[in-house]
């Protein structure tokens, strides 16, 4: 264990643990938000783990999660649009906090790693993660209005 893996453990136990609780209980509007937040908390944990194990290639799973996690939330926003319209999810501060956490982790890793090719990859991952999460939460809060046949 080093500082990075300790930070990852804390993020997993606190953050992802809370999203597991949030997705397993409560009304639908809470569950979709928890699903979106699970991406924005697990992806920084994967980046911290890559740094902690000192394996640059472990950044690839984080990159794929940053790409496909928000896409998964869009799937729910699109196909559960009718149910979400009746009871739209509203948790902007939670979303901002989780996105801020991701941004901070990416920036810290960039500063530690120094300017090279790996830093570009980290920045791309961070941009995709933060942008994707904000857009996905927008989509959940009425950004997609579904039709029964669409």
């Amino acid at each position, binding site marked *: 264990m080093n500082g990075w893996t300790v930070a990852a453990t804390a993020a997993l136990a606190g953050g992802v643990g809370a999203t597991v609780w949030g997705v397993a209980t409560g009304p639908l509007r809470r569950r979709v938000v928890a699903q979106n937040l699970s991406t924005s908390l697990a992806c920084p944990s994967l980046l911290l783990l890559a740094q902690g194990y000192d394996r640059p290639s472990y950044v*690839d*799973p984080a*990159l794929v999660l940053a*790409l496909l996690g928000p*896409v998964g939330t*869009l799937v729910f926003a699109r196909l559960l649009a009718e149910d979400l319209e009746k009871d739209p999810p509203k948790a902007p501060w939670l979303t901002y906090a989780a996105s801020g956490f991701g941004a901070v982790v990416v920036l810290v890793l960039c500063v530690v790693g120094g300017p090279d090719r790996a830093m570009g990859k980290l920045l791309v991952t961070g941009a995709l993660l933060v942008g*994707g999460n904000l857009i996905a939460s927008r989509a959940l809060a009425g950004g*997609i209005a579904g039709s029964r046949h*669409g």
Partner: protein
Amino acid sequence: MTRRVRLWILAVGGAGLAALLVAACLELPGFGGTSHPYGDRAVRASLARRTANTIASINFDQRAFDTLGEMSILFASVLGTVVLLRQTRDERRAKPEPAYVALPVRRYALIVLPVALLTGLYVIAHGQLSPGGGFQGGVVAATALHLLYLGADYRALERIRPVGLYEVGDALAASAYLVTGLAGLIGGAAFLANTLLPYGTFNTLSSGGTVPLLNAAIGMEVACAVVVLLARFLDQAVEIEQEGGT
């Protein structure tokens, strides 16, 4: 057979399986131990063929025949889906209604689609160098296309997704895998043997002999198969309706 007898047979079978599993568990080496007889041999074999990612070497070189079986399973299941979810005589196609999608969400979908496609191709191309490979990259690339359904509507997706072409691509990629295997057989060694091509320089795109070729074939097969699979599901969920319902 009565219900009681059936339950008894189930109980006996379950108890036997549980006993076997417990017996096997007691003989397992400890969690996180240092002795890895299979791992050590696999790493040695993969380094001898200059494949940086041992998992790719196992999938496409040491156990390439297993991967052929897995590919056939995917191929057969997609074939079964195509047959089962076809449009039957008492069904008709309804025009899908476009959904309202907010502008930022639509822009996000249009920007991320090519980015995800490129990432999928990157994961396929670097399968023998870093984590990833044909299966993972193929799924990412195929998922990327469906951002058009999520960010716009089904009609837009249908415009850039000629399903017939993807069916042909699926079959072509599956046969490319077979042909590479047969080339190994004709080249004097065995089916799917990695002896034909030079092993190249360690940790470059062309290293590993036939590993990158088989990897690319799997990538194309998986991407096309997922597109065809999702096309059948989307057709059923969005377009096809039972005749005379309304």
